[in-house]
């Protein structure tokens, strides 16, 4: 049986926890709000870029471009985007489960013949992959502390260079897609080769509509790296937004939970206190009675 003092200690302990979870929630809210502005202004850039790329690329003009051409798949690269820190509910777990239940069965052959490599963004993913002995090509930690666009330029350069050297024939990104503050889903997106359907509007001849300088091919050549970096950036900010909102929800729930625990504990404390008071009175009364009877 815990004593009155024990319960009191526990209550103050839980209260401390509650303060921490509350603070963490507030931090996530603030960061998410800041990030949402980033997301909004980036959308403007991304959509325009996508639009221009789709205007100039036709089936004909992208054939022969290494970023668009499909080739026989021997080696696959997966980029998984997770968080560096925990306390964000099932954010990372969902992704690992998706990997186990969807990706591994689908690409079983490649996994069996060890033609699959990983690039990890975020510490949690790195720990998971290392524990399960997957081949980790590179890993990036603490990217989200200071999220700068340079990061995605660097990343996309590294990836597209090894793609050009035929190190991989397909590159996928697995990440949490941000749908709303309360909802995100795990998605596997094909990064390379670029899907023509994503970037072109079929075969219609748009080149006549615009003057193209220098020419279609060189334009596509200079646009694709920019497009790839922006794809990575899109994924990074999406994943970070989902992480923050997952943490926000988790911390909100934790705070609610501590409230409940505090309620239970204080009612136990009060009951016990009442008990001891009653017992004391009883003792006094029975003592007094004994005196009277004497």
């Amino acid at each position, binding site marked *: 049986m815990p004593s009155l003092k024990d319960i009191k200690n526990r209550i103050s302990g839980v209260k401390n926890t509650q303060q921490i979870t509350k603070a963490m929630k507030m931090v996530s809210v603030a960061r998410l709000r800041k990030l949402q502005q980033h997301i909004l202004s*980036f959308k*403007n850039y991304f959509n325009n870029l996508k639009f221009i790329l789709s205007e100039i690329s036709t089936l004909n003009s992208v054939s022969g471009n290494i970023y668009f051409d499909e080739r026989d798949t021997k080696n696959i690269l997966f980029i998984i985007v997770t968080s560096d820190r925990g306390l964000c509910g099932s954010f990372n777990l969902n992704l690992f489960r998706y990997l186990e239940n969807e990706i591994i069965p689908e690409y079983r052959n490649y996994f069996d013949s060890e033609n699959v490599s990983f690039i990890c963004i975020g510490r949690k993913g790195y720990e998971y992959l290392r524990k399960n002995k997957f081949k980790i090509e590179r890993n990036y930690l603490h990217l989200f502390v200071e999220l700068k666009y340079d990061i995605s330029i660097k990343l996309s350069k590294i990836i597209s260079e090894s793609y050009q050297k035929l190190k991989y024939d397909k590159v996928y990104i697995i990440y949490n897609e941000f749908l709303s503050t309360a909802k995100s889903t795990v998605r596997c997106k094909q990064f390379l080769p670029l899907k023509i359907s994503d970037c072109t509007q079929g075969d219609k001849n748009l080149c006549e509509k*615009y003057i*193209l300088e220098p020419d279609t091919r*060189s334009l596509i050549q*200079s646009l694709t790296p920019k497009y790839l970096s922006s794809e990575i950036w899109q994924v990074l900010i999406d994943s970070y937004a989902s992480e923050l909102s997952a943490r926000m929800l988790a911390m909100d729930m934790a705070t609610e939970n501590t409230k409940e625990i505090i309620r239970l504990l204080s009612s136990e404390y009060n009951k016990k206190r009442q008990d001891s008071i009653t017992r004391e009175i009883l003792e006094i009364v029975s003592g007094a009675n004994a005196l009277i009877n004497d």
Partner: protein
Amino acid sequence: MKIMNLEIITPEKLVYKSQVISISIPGTIGSFQVLFDHAPIISSFEIGRIVLVDRNNLKVEFITSGGIIKVEKNNIIVLAETIEKPEEIDIKLAEEALREAKKKLSILEREDVDVDRAEIALKKAINRLKHSRKPI
């Protein structure tokens, strides 16, 4: 007044949004100027300086490391990964980049030096330094 809508956008923010009278761009196959009723064009542009004249006839200058411009029906969209005003340029950082690039280029024999990339870095640094020192 013959004015066009201009948006200069980077992945991180909307740098400039206003109405302009003209804009000069360091296009890949030569600098060009866009005025009212310009034919629709999509062009890439290189490291250099973008100068525009806003509706109050004031010159505004931007330093860029390349990007793409689209002009259609007097709406201009400029997309660039980096674009700064001359007064925003961090001279120290640019000088450091210049030194770094020069150092890389001076040891051409080494295999791990990507010459193309170092040259681009050099160009960017020179461009930044050149324009940071003479604001209009």
